């Protein structure tokens, strides 16, 4: 591993406040898990402290131990874990306190906000009841008082009409509101410290901006300290005061947020920051002129395309895609951007013949998808490749990597096994996957390697068109950077057209020549990549770009200000879309 900052004395050197009045001090924490494969040292040596009113971000990729560290603070580790060291919270060491004391500490001194708000709320109880449960756990409260305090907590986090909504069940709220409810429940007893584990990761970027705003507000108004667990450098730049970078169970760097982004000391931190995609930094469309189209024949053409999901048992059907027009030409990468529910994945699946188009027209390689028949469409399938979002699930666990990659070849071409194998080797070389991986099973590969193999499979028959549905969103940022780079190289080399679907504008900017922005099934804006990113016309696009946090605290502070300004103007002008 790279030379790390000595984690042991980091707090002394870098922390502006002394350990005595810190809300939380973690000293030489070590957590070990028992697994089938033996002991796993999830956290090896972590020390840090959090001052009152401070937001400390713990940043790292999967396997860094950041979530385990967070759970230690609340004593939420499973029984298979053994922790050593100390975690002092308001004078009590949470590692050595009794279960009864720990229960008293939770909710009163520290509380937690979870990643996935829909699973963090119990579906069969009202939100008011769930907030009141936390109050009831810390002394007798009358039903009336509990309700009043639940309403107060809900209004604190900006839930409108809390007197009424306190009796709602979780499924009656939207995703962002659910996260507000989770935060309200965490705040019910005004704990000095909130541990937020990826609080905005499961949310759309515009909602993420609202939740980050809320957390900042809570800190400013109530002086609540926050331990923010995240993998997203943009979120760190937006919210954190101080940053702890973790890598494989160790702290590699601790610095205040401005220093860290301006002068990262550790090699890993530098690499991590370098991997974060930024709009405009490496734009694929940089050299493209808005006026001319350098690409070849049109491969995909959608005219007033409509895709409807039938309703079940008398319920009305749902229109996922509504009158969408676009074209993809040979050699062109078309980026489709949108938040969840925008219909972007549906369009990709329909082009690949996995969903049915229900209205308008969609021509794929000259074939009208409205009259899709598997038998007549099959010959065209060899010209279409597909890369799925989840690399773990997109391989048959019983087949080797070579068999998986060879599947399209076996189906479409009657080649000899030897010949087929040679082609598989070529493909593996092309995606930079070592040849000896051919005999391995998918579960023996890492996420990034699996996504390379997935790309190899999609390219097996030299397709004219490749559809990539969020191909990197399940990957760590450093792995994502490599896969995206690879995708770019291969696209340039093979020259296929591609539909690149993503929720991440920066990723799309890196790859796409032209970009379409989807909002609830409608294409609201379309154009050359840099044009969309730099001079967005539609207010939704502006908002989308404005809410994307950039990994630079100073720039992000300015952007935030501008974004707020824009929202205020919109609210005044009642811009609707």
């Amino acid at each position, binding site marked *: 591993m790279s030379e790390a900052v000595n984690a042991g004395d980091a707090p002394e050197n870098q922390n502006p406040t002394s350990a005595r009045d810190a809300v939380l001090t973690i000293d030489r924490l070590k957590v070990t898990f028992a697994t089938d494969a033996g002991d796993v040292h999830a956290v090896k040596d972590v020390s840090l402290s959090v001052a009152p009113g401070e937001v400390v971000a713990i940043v790292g990729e999967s396997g860094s131990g950041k979530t385990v560290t967070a759970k230690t603070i609340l004593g939420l580790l499973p029984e298979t874990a053994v922790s050593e060291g100390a975690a002092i919270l308001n004078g009590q060491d949470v590692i050595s306190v009794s279960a009864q004391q720990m229960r008293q500490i939770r909710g009163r001194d520290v509380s937690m906000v979870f990643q996935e708000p829909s699973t*963090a709320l*119990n579906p069969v109880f009202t939100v008011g009841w769930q907030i009141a449960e936390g109050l009831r756990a810390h002394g007798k409260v009358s039903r009336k008082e509990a309700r009043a305090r639940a309403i107060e907590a809900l209004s604190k986090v*900006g839930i409108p*009409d809390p007197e009424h909504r306190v009796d709602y069940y979780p499924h009656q709220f939207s995703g962002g509101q659910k996260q507000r409810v989770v935060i309200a429940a965490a705040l019910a007893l005004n704990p000095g410290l909130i541990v937020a584990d990826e609080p905005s990761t499961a949310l759309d970027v515009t909602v993420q901006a609202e939740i980050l705003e809320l957390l900042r507000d809570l800190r400013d108004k109530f002086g609540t300290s926050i331990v923010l667990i995240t993998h997203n450098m943009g979120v760190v730049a937006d919210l954190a005061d101080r940053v702890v970078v973790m890598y494989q169970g160790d702290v590699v760097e601790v610095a205040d947020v401005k220093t860290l982004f301006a002068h990262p000391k550790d090699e890993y931190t530098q690499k991590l920051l370098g991997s974060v995609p930024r709009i405009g930094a490496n734009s694929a469309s940089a050299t493209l002129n808005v006026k001319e189209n350098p690409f070849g024949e049109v491969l995909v053409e959608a005219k007033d395309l409509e895709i409807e999901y039938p309703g079940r048992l008398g319920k009305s059907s749902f229109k996922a895609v509504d009158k969408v027009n676009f074209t993809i030409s040979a050699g062109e990468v078309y980026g489709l951007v949108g938040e969840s529910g925008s219909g972007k994945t549906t369009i990709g699946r329909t082009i690949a013949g996995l969903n049915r188009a229900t209205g308008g027209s969609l021509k794929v390689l000259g074939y009208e998808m409205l009259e899709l028949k598997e038998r007549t469409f099959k010959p065209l399938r060899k010209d279409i490749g597909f890369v799925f979002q989840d690399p773990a699930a997109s391989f048959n666990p019983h087949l080797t990597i070579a068999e998986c990659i060879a599947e399209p070849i076996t189906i479409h071409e009657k080649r000899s096994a030897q010949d087929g194998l040679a082609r598989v080797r070529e493909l593996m070389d092309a995606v930079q996957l070592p040849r000896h991986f051919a005999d391995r099973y998918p579960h023996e590969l890492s996420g990034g390697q699996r996504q390379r193999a997935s790309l190899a499979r999609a390219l097996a028959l030299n397709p004219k068109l490749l559809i990539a549905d969020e191909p990197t969103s399940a990957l760590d940022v450093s792995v994502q950077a490599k896969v995206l780079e690879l995708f770019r190289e291969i696209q340039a080399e093979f020259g296929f057209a591609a539909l690149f679907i993503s929720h991440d504008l920066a990723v799309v900017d890196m790859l796409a020549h032209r970009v379409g922005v989807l909002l609830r099934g409608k294409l609201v804006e379309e154009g050359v990549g840099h044009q969309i990113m730099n001079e967005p016309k539609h207010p939704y696009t502006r908002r989308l770009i404005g809410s994307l946090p950039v990994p630079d605290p100073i720039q992000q502070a300015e952007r935030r200000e501008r974004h707020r300004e824009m929202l205020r103007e919109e609210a005044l002008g009642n811009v609707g879309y």
Partner: protein
Amino acid sequence: MTSMIDTPEGQTMEPAATPGKPKKQGLGLGRYILIRFLLIFPTIFILVTMVFFLMRITGDPITAALAGRLPPDALAERIAAAGYDRPIIVQYFEYLGNLIRGDFGTTLSDNTPVTQVLVNYGSATLELAIFALIVAFLIGIPFGMISAYKRDRLPDAFLRVFAILCYATPIFFAGLLLKLVFSVWLGWLPVAGRTNYTAELEGLRAPTGLYLLDALRAGNGTIIVDVLEHAALPAIALGLLTAGVFLRLVRTNVIGTLGAQYVEAGRSRGVSEYRLVTKHAYKPALIPIITVMGLQMALLMGGAVLTETTFEWKGLGFKLAEYLTARDFVAVQGIVMLLAVIVALTNFIVDIIAALIDPRVRY
């Protein structure tokens, strides 16, 4: 203290957001109940058809019951009289028509309408089922929760082996053991039957047939004790079987919800482990538990046949076994159909209860 954070709700971009208004209420549930109710009919229809044709593949009921006991021409005469010599399809539609009018046929061996058998013996089976369910709930649910909470520790191992033993012991063997120990060796409880005071209970004005209820109405302490003593062993035998199933069911589902994030969220706010198990984990687990419990009604009915035979508890199951021995297949078919209808109806009710507990269906 109450300060609004300035994010006007109108700007929420999420597709799911319908701020201000809750989703349409009631309509969803009404439709669900209607659809679920309509689904009973194909279920019953399929079972009726299946049982009818299966029972008739081998021949007509009169031959089955009386062949060898009557001379061939007398047999043929009775077959013709009952209409069993007509094409099977005609008989089938006639049978269906009769069923719709509530006519389940007339038994051959004692010449009683099957519906009369139901009236006479149904209440005994109902009473047994209720007693058994009480035993099953009292044992299955609390021990299931303990087992889930203490999973993979000693109490859990004991409870799981107990549950498997409940399930692995055929009712008639459990009955045999209970009789040996409590009736023969210890002499505490009666060997069989429902009461020694049949005459007193049947003599009541408008007897319900549920002997405990009748005994309570009669207000006679001796009879109440007697009824309870008779019910104890059959209820335990049938209840234990069901308790084993319930215990496993509660355990598995509560373990599932105990691992859910909302339980961890509750824990992170300081909620006690006891409350996490009995409230936060138990209530969401209840929905699948209730649904599967409904499916156990079939097990309970099958078990009732064996229990009643073992303890000479004169209910539907007991009569069914009698008719089986007598090869009276009209009676068997009728009772089997009735039990199928009962099971289908119970499943319907149970599914509705499960839906009522789930706010996602209710709202």
